[in-house]
């Protein structure tokens, strides 16, 4: 961002923060409202659109048949990929995937492993021969901060809409027959991610917008299901004190309850 513009916005935001308010009317630890729409893409096996404030992401899941890895012959694949196209924000240039998209993809895959989101054994059709491959593609439509939070909600709710058909596999002839008997996936846990922006050592903002993210010196992402923490990710930046971490975790737990209700109500 242009330094002069940044300087003006910085002073503007600081004046608001002194009054415990932010320039969109929220208080420091208030989150934006989230909305959720399920099964919006009919050609995918499961899909969801999530909006948090102006941030919008869409997730589509495609189930395909594949061969399992030799070292883990009885589990299927869950491949998550986040794409930040150049249409979602002016700071992203068209071309090869940007570093941020790669880091987010890696983080989301790690979270999925940490909380064992799916029992991957339910994706197995025939040991060492045939398994389901769930490719989850998350596409950001509008980048207005806290994209990762929206991505995780979209992924979870899309996974819950996936119905995979029963498949019969003949080991001798290697023939597959698909029976039109759809079984929904079992999703084990409901992790909710929340991002905080560290403005300076005094102010921490929950669920920052893109503008606030630019002004913040570092970000803190906490993933939790309300009791257990699955990830507490803070990549560098400004210091953070113990009391601030505890305060953040407290707010995340409340947020997790709201989001869980939202996901459950949508079904």
């Amino acid at each position: 961002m242009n330094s002069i513009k940044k300087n003006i916005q910085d002073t503007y935001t600081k004046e608001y923060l002194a009054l415990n308010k932010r320039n969109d009317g929220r208080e420091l630890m208030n989150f934006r409202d989230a909305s959720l729409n399920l099964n919006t893409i009919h050609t995918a096996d499961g899909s969801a659109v999530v909006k948090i404030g102006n941030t919008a992401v869409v997730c589509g899941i495609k189930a395909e048949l594949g061969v399992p890895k030799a070292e883990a012959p009885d589990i299927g694949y869950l491949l998550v990929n986040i794409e930040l196209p150049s249409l979602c924000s002016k700071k992203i240039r068209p071309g090869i995937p940007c570093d941020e998209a790669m880091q987010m993809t890696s983080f989301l895959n790690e979270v999925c492993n940490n909380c064992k989101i799916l029992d991957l054994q339910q994706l197995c059709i025939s040991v060492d021969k045939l398994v389901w491959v769930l490719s989850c593609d998350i596409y950001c439509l509008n980048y207005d901060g806290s994209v990762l939070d929206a991505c995780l909600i979209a992924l979870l709710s899309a996974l819950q809409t996936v119905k995979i058909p029963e498949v019969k596999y003949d080991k001798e002839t290697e023939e597959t027959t698909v029976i039109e008997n759809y079984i929904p996936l079992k999703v084990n846990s409901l992790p909710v991610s929340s991002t905080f922006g560290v403005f300076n050592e005094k102010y921490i903002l929950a669920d920052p917008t893109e503008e606030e993210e630019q002004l913040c010196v570092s970000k803190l992402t906490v993933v939790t299901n309300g009791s257990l923490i699955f990830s507490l990710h803070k990549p560098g930046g400004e210091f953070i004190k113990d009391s601030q971490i505890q305060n953040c975790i407290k707010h995340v737990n409340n947020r997790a309850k709201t989001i869980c209700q939202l996901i459950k109500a949508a079904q």
Partner: protein
Amino acid sequence: MSEEFLKCQLGFLGNTEGSAYLSQGKSTVSVSVVGPFEPKASKCMYDRATVDVTFRRKTGSITVHDKMLEGIMQSTCEKALVVEQYPRTTIVVTVQEMQDRGNLLSTCLNASCMGLMNSGIAMHHLYAAVSCAVTEKEEIILNPDETQINSSVAYLTLVFANTETRCLLTSHTTGEFSQKTYMDCMDKCYAASKEVFNFYQKVIKKSSIFN
């Protein structure tokens, strides 16, 4: 932390501003720091220096996961340097994996700090990374080895600065844990980070500047 655990050699590369070769347990990493020098016009910022961290694997190209580690190192290094002092320049830090037997992220971070110290670029503060694993019985093992990491329920890497009060710089976690466990890990890792800072001091005292 035993005497043998951390080993370091400073300035082992001739054509760089600073370099460090750090081994932490069985993991070894080498770091080179080049800069500040004039960058391409597209990378030039008129009020500060840009910091560029590249992470390289022993073999092959880096994966998406390595890209995330690179991002963590980048923002940790950038915050420690006084970037405002070197406008219109860039500082390039290259982290080369030599051997990975667990605790790679903390080794890389500690090595990058030593490399930056050796380069003589102005820094706000030093940082020390400590990894710990939480077992099923909720025991906390500092600087775990590979098998201990694989059998643990949670694995955390925490980075602290050498300030008087406890300040968390970076946190990267895998696995699941409770808030209480996290705080316990913070206590233990913070105590261990003091030893890392003592080690830094010892290495610098031994280096040629003071002899």
